Each structure stands twice: as structure tokens, then as C-alpha cells.
């Protein structure tokens, strides 16, 4: 079971390697990756430094080129794929079928992982990507129950990677346009969900309002923890009821399922959070390293309360959930 860590900067990358990640995924400093935030990500010089460091420690590096290019800007994605091949990364992570096809034809030896943004939730889709683009691995969207993951793992033509910890997309990844509906930019086109440039906070005296563009996403009382306005975690009104109509601020944590996932033959666990700090990376990676090692040992696996407590401190809203892995959540 490979532990795959995010890194949005060189300091975060170093923390990931030093705290026990087996592989680290990064993105270039542009809209070709799904975490296109100001000040984040790698230019070719930094990417090269990261690769050298990873190699010297026997770790792998994956490059996310996982947004969907539009025709006028196609060449930027093509260049990113070429650059990934030149750098000699261990794999690219891509979703767009044009990008996947280009990579498979131009750089056939460059491994291709299907990004979670590719929305492959069933055997037919996995077969499609495997037969057409020779993908070496697929990352599953966070919409499947544990039972469905097991069924897929037993039949999939390619090894599977699943999400372990981090921000929880409530919608099938790659098929959510809530952000562009309200704020123009979407994960698919720009690599941004609820872009910071569109967020505004208004103090109304006893309440704090958070807006995305012209839409009120939530109102917080003084004693509430005011979260970032991703649309799916706001409070809205339906039939006179004001509530978290889609989901509460919460992070995914599938650690309790680790032994099961190992038994299923899932090959890798992905942590979310290229936008998070080096301190977050250090904490989350070291805890997951311990957990994976414990789950692989001959001892019965127990999620240590100290791990859960520590992860909760970096979770959205201080809470974690098994998400769709558990049927009741759905």
C-alpha cells in the first residue's frame, strides 16, 4: 500500500518525503492542475529539485495535469506533458481524454494515472481508459461505498488508488459545476473551486457573513467556526428550513478502513491538500505512515485515538467522516 502525499511547495514536498510518503504528487504553476492557487505549485526548476530529492530517498513523484484544456490554450497542457516527460516523473495524473491520448502517443513510456477528475466509478469506464490510453492506475472518485470499491478492485483492469484523508468533495469529481455557476472559475477549467478572488466576508454586528460572488453562502454566529465558502458546505433554505442542505464542513478520513482496503488489493492511498501548509503535510503524512505500517503488520489494527484527535485538528470544521464509503452517509 503506497502512501501518496500532496505537496504544493518545496518545503511541503520535503516534509512529505521526510515523514514517510512513498510518492508525492505536485503540479506546475499554472491552470494545468486542479489546485491552481496563487503562490502554490512548482516551476520546472523547483520540480527538478524535488525530483532529485525524492530519487535520492527512493521515493516517486507524480505530476498532476488534471484539468480540462480548452482549444485556445491546448498548447499549455501539451507543454506540461512534454515537460513531465523531460523531467522524468514517475507518472502524470490526467483526466482529459485529449491529454491522455497525446501523452500515450507522444510519450508512451511515461506512466499515466487517471485523475479522480476523470470520474471513473465503474468497470466500464475503467476499461475505457485502460484500453484507449493504457493507464497504469486510476484514482477513484469519493462517491463509492466500501463494498463498491471492493467489487471494483476485484475486477478492475488497472490498479486502484483511493482517497484517505482531506477535504471531501461531496459531488462526483469532474462533474461539479457549482463553482463556475456562482464564481466563473471551476475545477475542470481553471483548477479552482470557490476561488479566493470571489470570496468576501461581511461583519454585520452579531454575525459574520461569507459570500461567494453575489451569493450568500453562510452566516456564522460569534461562537461558530467560520469556514471557507465552498458552496457544497454552506447553509441554505429549502421549504423554510435553513440547514447544510448538501454537507457540513467536514473532512474525509478513511483510516478505519485501512485493513479492508489492503485486503481488497487497493494499491495506494491518496492524501488531499496541495493547498495546505508544510506543517499539515508533516502531521498528516507521519500519522498515515504509522497507520499503514500498523495495518500491514501482523497485529490487529486499531486506529489510535491520538491519531484521530491529531487529524481532527487539521480537518474542516474539526470533524471527519467516512463519507460515501459508508452507506448511511449517502
Amino acid at each position, binding site marked *: 500500500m503506497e502512501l501518496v502525499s500532496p505537496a504544493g511547495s518545496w518545503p511541503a514536498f520535503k516534509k512529505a518525503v521526510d515523514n514517510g510518503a512513498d510518492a508525492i504528487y505536485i503540479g506546475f504553476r499554472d491552470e494545468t492542475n486542479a489546485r491552481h492557487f496563487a503562490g502554490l505549485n512548482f516551476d520546472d526548476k523547483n520540480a527538478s529539485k524535488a525530483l532529485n530529492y525524492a530519487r535520492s530517498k527512493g521515493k516517486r513523484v507524480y505530476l498532476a495535469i488534471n484539468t*480540462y*484544456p*480548452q*482549444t*485556445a490554450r*491546448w498548447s499549455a497542457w501539451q507543454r506540461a506533458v512534454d515537460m513531465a516527460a523531460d523531467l522524468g516523473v514517475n507518472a502524470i495524473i490526467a*483526466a*482529459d*481524454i*485529449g491529454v491522455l*491520448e497525446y501523452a500515450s502517443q507522444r510519450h508512451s513510456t511515461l506512466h499515466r494515472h487517471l485523475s479522480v477528475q476523470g*470520474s*471513473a*466509478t*465503474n468497470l*466500464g*469506464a475503467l*476499461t*475505457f481508459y485502460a*484500453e*484507449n490510453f493504457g493507464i497504469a492506475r486510476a484514482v477513484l472518485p*469519493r*462517491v*463509492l*461505498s466500501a463494498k*463498491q470499491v471492493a*467489487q471494483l478492485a476485484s475486477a478492475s483492469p488497472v490498479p486502484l488508488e483511493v482517497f484517505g484523508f482531506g477535504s471531501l468533495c461531496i*459531488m*462526483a469529481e469532474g*462533474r*461539479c*459545476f457549482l463553482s*463556475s*455557476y*456562482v*464564481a*466563473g472559475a*471551476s475545477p*475542470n*477549467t481553471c483548477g479552482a473551486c470557490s476561488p479566493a478572488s470571489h470570496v468576501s466576508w461581511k461583519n454585520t454586528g452579531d454575525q459574520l457573513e461569507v459570500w461567494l*460572488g*453575489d*451569493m*450568500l453562502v*453562510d452566516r456564522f454566529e460569534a461562537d461558530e467556526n467560520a469556514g471557507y465558502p465552498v458552496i*457544497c458546505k*454552506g*447553509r*441554505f*433554505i*429549502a421549504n423554510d428550513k*435553513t440547514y447544510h*442542505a*448538501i*454537507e457540513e464542513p467536514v473532512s474525509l478520513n478513511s483510516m478505519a478502513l485501512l485493513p479492508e482496503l489492503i485486503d481488497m488489493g487497493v494499491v495506494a492511498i491518496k492524501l488531499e491538500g496541495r493547498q495546505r501548509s508544510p506543517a499539515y503535510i508533516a502531521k498528516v503524512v507521519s500519522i498515515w505512515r504509522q497507520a499503514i505500517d500498523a495495518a500491514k503488520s501482523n497485529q490487529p489494527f486499531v486506529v489510535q485515538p491520538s491519531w484521530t484527535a491529531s487529524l481532527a485538528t487539521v480537518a474542516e470544521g474539526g470533524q471527519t467522516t467516512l463519507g*460515501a464509503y459508508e*452507506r*448511511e*452517509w*449517502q
Partner: protein
Amino acid sequence: MVKISLGPIQYYWKKQQVFDFYNEVSELPVERVYLGETVCSKRRELRLEDWLEIAQQLTTSGKQVCLSTMTLIEAASELSQLKKLCQAEHGFMVEANDYGAVQFCSESQTPFIAGAMLNLYNHRSVEKMLALGAQGWVMPYEITRQSLSALLNGLSPEVADKANTEVFSWGKVPLAYSARCFTARHHELPKDSCQLVCGEYPEGLALESQEQQRFLNINGIQTQSGHSYNLLSEWRDMQALGITWMRISPSLSNTKSIVETLANAIEMNSDIARACADDECNGYWFGRSGLERVA
């Protein structure tokens, strides 16, 4: 000449309602009708045989029929249903709304339309679908006019006239799909015992912000735009761009008037008086946020 298509019913209507609706559709000036359940496999008012019966009737009335697949396919049972739908024995085209459907259609050489959720954002991905047997494709909702124009110009000349581009032109935009059912959540029911409560909302459940701003529309596991998207007045421009199909998404109340308005304008080669209204939106097409209205 741009043509009118009618998208699949996105909501959970009663069987009789569905039959009545398509009875009316058979008299409407639409050339193509998409049929089938695209949102949730638990909605079983109609079986495949029922859909095929409607398909047959519409064909008799001179409509071209295309069977639409589910969009989010997870369970093994859903996959076997999908496989059945994608086998050409029924003789109809299929709208593939997931790459699993593309796989099954290309395996069994069933002609298919590449649906909007396949995320075809550039000329290369459209060319790939055409090479695999797609007879047309539906543009992702968030693409702008400008980007679509560049895409169409980027297509290689050999395939450009086979692209048969379709644009979602009227109705609530499907913005997201989830494992979770938000209608059941509203009723505090788990999805596995949802009591098919979405059947109580034949046009979805409106979601407003705490400032009473119209925002989203909940439809089971699907989240739609709160405003209806309206590009009807753009029909002339679409025709000039080389777009083949303008899609109208069914609603209980006004499908007939929308279709007739558009068909009449195309027939008479006239402008559409019914431009985008206050409670509608068209932002995506003009490069703005989707919910905006560009006058």
C-alpha cells in the same frame, strides 16, 4: 439549419405523466427526443420496455429517438442495466453520459451521442469521440461561445462536418451529481430507504440563500441551477457557428411554449422576442458566472 432536440426528463414523474407528456411531444416541432432515466437507478416508474414503447411511438410520429444512459454508475446492477441499454438490439441511438457507456457502445458498435458529462472541452477530445463512433456530442455546460467557436475551428476538416454539435439551450442546468441524495437528506431519510421522495418534486426542490436569493434546485442526487438557462435568442448565432442541435430540457409546465417559440423563430427566420428573463440566466455562454444574466 439548426434543429431542436428535447433532452431527457430529469425529474421523477409518474408513469402516466410521462406517457401523457410524450403524447404531447409527438405533436411538437422537435426533431430528436432523448428518452430515459439519467439521474437515479431507483426511479423505476418506467422499465426499459416502457421507454422502448414510447420510443416506437415517437419514431412513428417522425421523431429521431436517442436513449439516454444514467450519469453516475456505481453498483454492479446499474452497470448491467447500462450494458443492456448500450447493445444495439433495440435499434435506437444511445446518449452516453458516462465513459462506461462509451465503452459498451463502441464494443457493440451502437451509434451514440457523447453526452455533456463526458467533459469534451477541446477539439482533440471531440475528435477522439468521433473516432470511436460518436454521431454527435453535447457541449459541457460551462463552455463559452468563444471557446466553442475555437473548438469547432480546431476540428480537422475530415471530421468537422460530422461533429453534430449540440448545445443545452433551455432549462435547469445539471450542475453536479453525488453519491448522496439531497432530496432524501432534506426529508431526513437515508438514501437506501428514500421512499422515492423525489417523486413529490416534479420540478425539483428550490434551494435559496439566507438572503432569499434563488440559487440551486435539488433533484435527488443531482443538483441543478436554480434559474432556467435560456439561450433561445442566440439561435441565429448558433446556426452561424455551425451548431446542429439546440436542446430544450423538459419541464412540466412550459415545454410546449418554449419549443414552439424556438421552432417558430427558426421557421420564420425571425428574432426571438423572449430573451433571457429576470428569473433566467445565460452567463456561461457569454463568459460570465453561470447564474448571471447578460441582456
